């Protein structure tokens, strides 16, 4: 039962101290460790599910493991940083189609293709100064790609990111974008 460690940790952190963050510091560390270990174990379940949902014609190709980026709230995803290509798969757990705006921190500029080969329109905007200054943030990403994803009910879409060129991005803004600073 690969998700037991996560479900057990989630059970533990229903305690009111965990919900509100009023536990002792050592207990907070223990909660964080339990959740982190549980999430790490549950990623295997995600991969096993996508192995079934993403069948390959050529079985000799190895499975490409999926991984989480849990620090995208501070625009940090180190494994994709500097890569020439990567994929983003979004799973919609609700029973209806949804639209969702995605932010992907990047060090290069990418063309984004959907599963049918269509280019997705995306905006490249700078990561805000307060984000860049967050203590402990290790990312070199200075920009983020934002696009709208339409996800089917209880389904997923995969987006393929392919680098446009190998030059590192500066803090340059597209001509179409408007910036007001006061």
């Amino acid at each position, binding site marked *: 039962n690969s998700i037991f460690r996560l479900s057990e940790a989630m059970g533990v952190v229903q305690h009111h101290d965990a919900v509100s963050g*009023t536990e002792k510091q050592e207990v907070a560390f223990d909660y964080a460790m339990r959740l982190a270990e549980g999430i790490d174990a549950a990623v295997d379940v*995600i991969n096993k599910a996508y192995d079934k949902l993403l069948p390959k014609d050529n079985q000799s190709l190895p499975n*490409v493991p999926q991984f989480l980026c849990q620090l995208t709230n501070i625009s940090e995803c180190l494994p994709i940083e500097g890569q020439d290509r990567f994929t983003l*798969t*979004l799973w919609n757990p609700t029973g209806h189609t949804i639209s969702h705006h995605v932010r992907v921190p990047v060090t290069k500029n990418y063309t984004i293709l959907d599963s049918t080969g269509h280019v997705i329109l995306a905006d490249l905007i700078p990561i805000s100064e307060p984000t860049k200054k*967050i203590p402990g943030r290790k990312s070199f990403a200075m920009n983020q790609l934002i696009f*709208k994803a339409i996800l089917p009910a209880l389904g997923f879409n995969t987006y393929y990111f*392919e680098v446009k060129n190998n030059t590192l991005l500066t803090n340059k803004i597209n001509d179409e974008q408007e910036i007001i600073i006061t």
Partner: protein
Amino acid sequence: KDDKCILQNEYLRVEFDCQGNLNKIINLKKNIVVPFTAQGFYWYTSFAGNNSRAEFQASGAYIFRPNSSDPQPVSTKRSITCIKTATVQSAIIVFNDWTSQEINLYDNANILEVEWTVGPIPIDDNIGKEIILRYDTDIKSQSKFYTDANGREVLERIRDYRPTWNYSKVESVSGNYYPINSRIWIKEPNRQFTILTDRSEGGSSIYDGSIEIMVHRRTFYDDALGVDEPLNETAFDDGLVVRGRHFLIIESPASSALYHRVGSQQLYMHPLATYALPQLSYVNYS
């Protein structure tokens, strides 16, 4: 290129003045205007106490006990950067080194996103601080506000009142604080202002038309209720940085539930993002 920063799509118009103050949010479809007299970060000073449960109990892990009912603004000025693209329009408002907010209006969105960042809270002055994000409107809420109980039933809260006993006001702020597990709102006959939260927080409506939500705190004293530690996060050199989001809905009371129920489900059951590094060209990958 303009004096004012205005975020606008087909549903909402959000106006800021040149000093970075949120002036008003307009629901364009319903022609509902909600002016804001103030919006931003404030802090309460934590009561120091004497490590007892009696009269001088300190503000600590379990107890929120400010020593004044007037919170201080975290800064006297702020800077605003406004970015507009086809997908998103953003106002990034920096209050000081440790508080900022990014207000985002996405295309086709009828909910306004406020992403707040607080911390590390400075404690060089040896004063415990409890940080709130406050939204002051002109809505005549008549002492009433509404918060959910564990994401389930939303209950009516009335300032300085309890439905089952005669309430004597002692703590004017903390005595009116309630858990906000998913949402809080205030309303009048034709306007409702709802805030969805991305996590459990505490909050209140201390004045008519006002909603305040506590987002971070750092205290020096234990409240003698068993934790035996102040909420100081001294294990981290400078304290913690916390980032979260509020989602603002301006609607009529009759139709607000349609938006906050759908919005809260999308928050709770948000898409799961996973990445992969296939060493294949798109043609071969697809």
